[in-house]
């Protein structure tokens, strides 16, 4: 907007304001009705859905799949879409940061005088695309159920390790055979035994490389069982 357009906007706005109504009672009426609706919805939600409490946090039994609040699903899904581990920081920090910076600086690069949505198609279409993308990612994140079973034939001595892996939420990020998250946060573990040695596997599970949580809390015995089982996959 150049100086003339700014002046024109302000002049037009002055007139629109004169023609408008006073905040009290007109605008405040609408605001109050909306607040009442919001309060009603909130109270209904709290009564109907309550506030349940999950099992107590226990660093030693990781039998729970890490799931964020629903409004972070789209971020979580973004991580799944971007596969190569080298790019993980790009997905986790890079993309959200760039989006936030772009959002923050919006008024400073979109400076045209036009405000009608259908007369500034680039902004409007971008906005709609972002909304659709976020909705889709949220939806995918919501339905990506956390499976806790691994149906692969396993020699009896590895059964224990398999159970622990199945119940420890590994499959939220990793795939093993047909199970788990294909294209998830972490690499496919189906043939992990042929890729890295048993000690490296144990090391990984213990320290939790990158964004993977550390499973040190499982205890040495269980960690060994897990490592034995994973090393047997080849």
């Amino acid at each position, binding site marked *: 907007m150049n100086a003339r357009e700014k002046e024109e906007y302000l002049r037009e706005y002055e007139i*629109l304001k004169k023609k408008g109504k006073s905040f009290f009672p007109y605008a405040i009426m609408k605001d109050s009705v*909306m607040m009442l609706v919001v309060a009603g919805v*909130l109270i209904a939600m709290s009564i109907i859905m309550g*506030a349940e409490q999950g099992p107590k946090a226990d660093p030693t039994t990781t039998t729970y799949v890490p799931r964020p609040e629903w409004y972070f699903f789209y971020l979580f899904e973004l991580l799944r879409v971007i596969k190569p581990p080298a790019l993980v920081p790009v997905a986790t920090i890079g993309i959200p940061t760039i989006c936030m910076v772009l959002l923050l600086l919006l008024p400073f690069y979109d400076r045209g005088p036009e405000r009608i949505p259908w007369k500034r198609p680039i902004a409007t279409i971008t906005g709609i695309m972002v909304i659709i993308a976020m909705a889709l990612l949220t939806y995918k994140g919501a339905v990506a159920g956390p499976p806790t079973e691994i149906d692969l034939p396993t020699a009896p001595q590895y059964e224990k390790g398999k159970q622990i892996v199945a119940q420890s939420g590994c499959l939220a990020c990793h795939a093993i055979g047909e199970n788990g998250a294909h294209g998830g946060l972490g690499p496919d573990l189906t043939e992990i035994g042929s890729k890295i040695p048993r000690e490296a596997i144990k090391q990984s599970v213990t320290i939790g490389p990158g964004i993977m949580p550390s499973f040190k809390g499982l205890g040495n015995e269980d960690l060994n069982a897990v490592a034995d089982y994973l090393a047997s996959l080849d």
Partner: protein
Amino acid sequence: MKLLPSRKKKAEADGSENGEVEAVAKPTRGERAAQAKQLATHHGTQSGIDVAGWVDSRTNATGIFTAMMSRHVPKGTNWFYTLGSATMFIFAMQAITGVFLSMYYTPSATQAYASITHLTNEVFMGEFVRGLHKWGASLMIILIFLHMARTFFFGAYKYPRELNWVIGVVLLILTTVMGLTGYLLPFDQRSFWATIVANNITASGPVVGPYLADFLRAGPDFSATTLSRFYALHMMVVPGLIGALIGAHLFFVVKLGTTAPPWVRAGRPKGSRPTEAVAAGVAVEDLDEVAVNGAVTVADAEPPAEAEVDAAEAEEVEAKPAEETEAETAAPEPAEEAAEEASSEEDGEVNS
């Protein structure tokens, strides 16, 4: 702001016009006393100590309040404009329910879970208040996104409201930080492991990532201090910032005014609107001002402000008595009042 002189004038005018007030007040006290008395009567304080008047003469609180209430929102303002105040409402709800939760919550890794169990199962209405806080968080996220979408599609971030957009984005980020820090506090399996992953994600960030993660965890490992750190962020630091920024946000809203929907044009009167758009606009404004002042001060007789004496005044004076009585009788019932005034305003316009 032009309201302020007009209010003062009104008080003086009332003082001399209104026999009762004049008789009670001691004439020797002079004008200031009469004015104070006037203020006292219309705040309902008949006692000798006039607190409202005392505060008012130092802060001009009534003047600011009246100016805020009678400021105009532009033509075309619709339901989409309620999303911002709805967001603010839900934030206030979060603050209130949060205070009650904090009365029972213990931010320690060993006791947090038990304190939540106690709160949920034993405290009167405990689960309900937890529910309000929990679902309120989700609603706040939804509302803030809707509000942002509204300002985006209406082009409300453009000149002169750029700063308000920037403040808004910071509010958005802080609101998600609230979600993140609050999620850990119940300290059940779900929140515990999700927070560990979130923290590892933070740590994978470039340059500051590892340091930020260390700060949040209060060390290289997830420990007992992590929980109290999240708690401090969640209940003091971030809400404080959000509150302050909402204040700044609203300051700009009042100072700059809200946009009109972009497709509403000033120069195009439609329907019964008169062709002399500008003159009509002035007349409508005056009508509104009378109505509002009438309602706020319980219908004191208001002489028109001199600055606004113009051609429109004639209609205004004509329309005034009707406006006043309406405002007075309907004062406790805003809905009715709005409907009635809307119709009477239409009449006024048609007449002009």
